[in-house]
Structure formats: structure tokens, C-alpha cells
């Protein structure tokens, strides 16, 4: 099955709306795109259409949260996180338990081009004290994350996809907040990944296995707080670390892993992501291929990394 995680969110929050009357949902004129409309149709009294006013939506939700409600505020990730300083004051520093739901993350947005793509949002949200950052990989995980966020009110950023992403978990999967999710064992290297490219990393590990490389794959759904113990243990056990994310390699998952290992256990690292450039129009598939974020591109880069070939060094000379 392939599902856009924004739909997983919209369906789940509208289900949970019937269980918890403290849930309120806001949107800024993108309710059909973010799928918050599903909640809005079932609970019109607890749905607030703010028009194209992301800052006002952030502040209003903060006021609601400070009065005991559980607000989810929805927009394209770059539009809402782009109002960074409002989030910083009204949500983070006010410790207002608002869940910021950013859909349309990464170059996976595709044809709409860079203006609609969030490529820097993890970096921004990760820098705020106390902010939780969660980027689920598929439908099953997203549904459990949404339930977790309802049951544990806290300032949080939930990063979701426009495009359908394949299931990487079975129905028996159990999401554990702040705990890394090992998807595949391996001893030659560990790939830490998140979001829509987790399935690409798994496919790449399959290909590399055929070539005799035993690559571990770990889904880091919770980027903050990071599961430091698992990250360090995996780095120690494999000696080679790769990160894969549909986000800038500056400030995102790759940075979080590199910062952690740099202090605790310096380990050779390859960060696969957007290498300090803007996005552009094109299909998701074409963009993932161009940026080396499809399974093939990931395989090429990991192979070069493990072999220590010049291709790896060239590919990594341009950024960050």
C-alpha cells in the first residue's frame, strides 16, 4: 500500500476528535491539501479556518493551548514553519502544547517547485528548546504518531508528505516516541533515515546485500529528542554511518546524527539529502533521482562511501 501521510493524519485526527473534545484543528486556507478538512466536516465547532494567516493561526492556537485545548495547526510545512519567530515566542517560549502539522515536505512535493517545498523546516524546529520533531515514514506510523500527540500534549512539529509513500511497517508495528525504529539488521554500515525516503533506503540495502554489503537500516521517526543510545550503539557496531532525508543536509537528520556522533563517537559519515541548493519543478521521482535520493542514487553513494572511492568525495565536496 502507498498512502500520503497527510491523509493518514486527516483520517486519524477526525477519528480522535470523537474521543477527545479538547482537540481543536486550525488551517490556513489549505484544509483540502492538508486533509484537516476531514476533521472540519465532522467537528465544525472545533475547526478554525484562519484564512491565509499563518502567524495569526500560530498565536491563536497558542492561546487555545494555554487555556487547556489541544490544537493541531495545519499548513504546508514551509508556510507554517517559515513563521519561525512566531512559533519561537508564542508556542516554544510560551510552552504552549500546540502540534504544528507541516504537510508537503521536501522535494517530494514535485511539480509545484521550490516555493512549496519545505527543505529547511527540520533545521528550524530542531533549534527550539523543548520542541519535539517527528517525521513518520508511512501510514501505520503516522496514525500512531497522531494518537501519541493527542495523548501527550507538548509543543511538537509533525512533518508529513504530499505524495503517497509505501508502507514499511506491518499492522503490528508499535510506535515508541523518542526510540529509534530498526528496520533491517546489518554490520557493514548503518543508514539512519526518516520520512518518505525510508523505503528508498530499504530498497538500497536490498541491492547492496546482493553485492555482499550488509547494511543496517534504522528509521529515526523522532528527530528530536534523538535516540542517542541507539545512534551511538549502531555507529559503534558498524563503524560507518549514512543519513538519508528529504531535507537539506544542513540542520536536518544528518546534522543531528553528525553533531551527536561528533561529540560522543566520531565516525565516518555520509549525509544524503539536499546539498545546499534550492528545489525546482519536476516529478517526485525525477527530483529524487536528480538529488540522489532514489534507491539507485542512495546505492551509488553508499557503495562509493564503503569503497572509499573518489566518486564519494566528489559528490560530497559541494556543501555543508
Amino acid at each position, binding site marked *: 500500500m502507498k498512502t500520503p501521510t497527510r491523509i493518514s493524519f486527516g483520517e486519524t485526527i477526525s477519528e480522535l476528535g470523537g474521543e477527545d473534545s479538547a482537540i481543536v484543528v486550525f488551517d490556513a486556507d489549505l484544509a483540502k491539501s492538508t486533509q484537516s478538512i476531514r476533521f472540519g466536516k465532522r467537528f465544525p465547532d472545533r475547526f478554525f479556518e484562519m484564512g491565509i494567516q499563518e502567524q495569526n493561526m500560530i498565536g491563536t492556537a497558542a*492561546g487555545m493551548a494555554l487555556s487547556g*485545548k489541544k490544537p493541531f495547526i495545519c499548513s504546508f510545512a514551509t508556510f507554517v514553519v517559515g513563521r519561525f519567530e512566531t512559533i519561537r515566542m508564542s508556542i516554544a517560549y510560551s510552552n504552549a502544547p500546540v502540534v504544528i502539522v507541516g504537510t508537503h515536505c521536501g522535494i517530494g512535493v514535485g511539480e509545484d517547485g521550490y516555493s512549496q517545498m519545505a527543505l529547511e523546516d527540520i533545521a528550524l524546529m530542531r533549534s527550539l528548546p523543548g520542541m519535539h520533531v517527528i517525521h513518520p515514514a508511512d501510514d501505520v506510523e503516522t496514525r500512531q504518531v497522531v494518537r501519541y500527540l493527542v495523548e501527550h500534549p507538548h509543543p511538537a512539529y509533525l512533518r508529513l508528505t504530499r505524495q503517497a509513500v509505501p508502507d514499511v511497517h506491518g499492522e503490528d508495528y508499535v510506535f515508541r516516541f523518542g526510540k529509534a525504529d530498526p528496520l533491517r539488521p546489518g554490520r557493514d554500515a548503518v543508514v539512519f533515515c526518516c520520512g518518505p525516503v525510508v523505503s528508498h533506503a530499504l530498497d538500497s540495502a536490498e541491492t547492496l546485500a546482493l553485492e555482499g554489503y550488509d547494511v543496517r537500516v534504522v528509521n529515526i521517526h523522532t528527530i528530536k529528542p534523538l535516540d542517542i543510545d541507539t545512534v551511538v550503539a549502531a555507529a559503534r557496531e558498524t563503524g560507518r554511518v549514512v543519513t538519508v532525508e528529504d531535507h537539506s543536509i544542513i540542520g536536518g537528520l544528518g546534522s543531528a546524527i553528525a553533531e551527536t556522533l561528533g561529540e560522543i563517537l566520531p565516525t565516518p559519515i555520509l549525509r544524503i539529502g539536499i546539498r545546499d541548493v534550492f528545489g525546482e519543478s519536476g516529478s517526485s521521482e525525477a527530483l529524487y533521482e536528480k538529488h540522489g535520493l532514489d534507491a539507485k542514487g542512495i546505492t551509488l553513494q553508499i557503495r562509493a562511501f564503503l569503497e572509499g572511492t573518489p566518486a564519494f568525495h566528489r559528490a560530497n565536496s559541494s556543501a555543508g
Partner: protein
Amino acid sequence: MNRLDTGGDSLNSPPLSSLSLEALKIEAVKLRIDILRMLNAAGSGHPGGSLSIVDILTVLFARHIRRVRPGIPDPERDRFVLSKGHGVPALYAVFARLGIIPREELLTLRKLGTRLQGHPHNGSLPYVEASTGSLGQGVSIAQGMALAARLDKSERRVYTILGDGEIQEGQMWEAFLSAAKYRLDNLIAILDYNKGQIDGFTSDVMNIDPVTDKLVSFGWEVQRIDGHDFPAIDAALEAAKTREGRPHFIVADTVKGKGVSFMEHNAEWHGKAPNDQETAAAVEELEQLLIPAMASQS
């Protein structure tokens, strides 16, 4: 100079809520003295915009805001959001007068480890309802609190004070639109129209006039008052409770630095603390206003 002898002592004074408007006017003079001494002890801060709102705050907390009192905050209390966060010394002085904080704590303003942060931080002190000080965000927050009160079918009201320079921020006008859309008649916004901001006169920096017409056209119920006229402040706050179906705006014409002759109308005193000599001169001037009050009490 680090003493608080003649200011707003909560222990030996009757509760603010028991006082007449005439007596509250005297209390506001004492609060001004506290504000100046706090700022002097801190060595930095914003006297101009604290002195311009203290009369409004005194009437608001004495006679209108319900269930804000010492102890654990009541969920059914009215809320107050100081959107123009730099005026917070005035709020702290009122909190001390209400007995919410010990009066001597005022002298910890802006010092390491204090609950009295340089700009409001809700994690540091009860009844600071949100963190503000980055301008433009308070009406949105207050609006969310007003919407929550409505969802709870509660009689809670939400008050917020904004600066005149502050409403140059775009987010303010977003909130002016949405509060009218949601017909938030439990939301009362007060504009501290003191005509000044850091870089000079508001009318020169970025004119907001005709501000009353703009707010009316946005769908708010608007009153305009002299923000240092106690009966007018009281009447406007009372009127803001009775009308239905629209959010309330009180445009209060105020004087930056009000009560201290050398600070009044002077943009230089936006963000500069008085030194010992200046504080002594200001306190002496204010204490003159207390003499007839003391004489009438004895």
C-alpha cells in the same frame, strides 16, 4: 536608591478592589515610584511605555479582571496578555500591589535567576499568561484564549494591551480581521496610544492614523478615551462588557513617561533606565502628589 519605602505596599494597604477611583489614582502614583525604583535597580528597561499604561492597569486589575489573586491560578480567571511586553515593569508593580509577588522581589527585575524577566515569560511567573515581548503576537494569543472560553461556555474575558508602534506589525491586522470574524465579544484590546516608539514619533516612523476609523472598519466596537482619566478608563472597561457580537477596542490616548516631567513626551525615555539622580528627582516629583493624600488620611 534600592529601597521601596513610599511605593505600592500591599501588606499595609487596603485591597485595590476596595478603593474608589480617586484613591486608585493615588495608588497609581505609588506604583509609578515602584516602577522607577525597579528600573533604577535593574539598570535597564522601559520607563516610557510602563508609565503610560500603569493607570489603565491599575483600574483594570482593581475593578475589572476577575479571580486574579494570590495563590494558585483559578482556571476560570479572566486572562490578561501584555502584548507590548516591554511595559512589564508596570505589570510586576501591580502584581506586587495585589500581593501576587512580594514587593521586595521587584528589585530583582532583570537580574540572573529572577522570576521578573525583562520581558514577560509565562514559565517564570503565574498570571503572566503568555510569553511576549517580540511585538505583534498578543492579540492572536488573547483571541485563542477568548475562543477557548467560548468553547468552554465560560464567562471568562480576555484583556490585552498593545503598543501603538506595535500595531505596525502585520500579524496584528491578521488578528483584527479574525477577531471580528469570530465575533469575540469576550475579547477586549486596549491600545496604549502614547505616540512614541524607539525611533521617534509613531506618526513619523510609520503612521497608524486614523487608527480608530481603521479598527471600526475592521468590525470592532471602538471607544476612544484619555488613558489617564480614571473615570473614563473605568467607564470604557465597563462598557466593553455589555455589548455583544463584536470584539472591543479601547484606544487610549496616553503620555509616554506620564507622571515624570522630564520623561513625558520624550522618546529618549523609551528604553533607558533612570540613574540614581534621575530616580531621586522623579520620585520626589511623584511624592509631591502623595502629600495631600497623606494629609487627608491623617
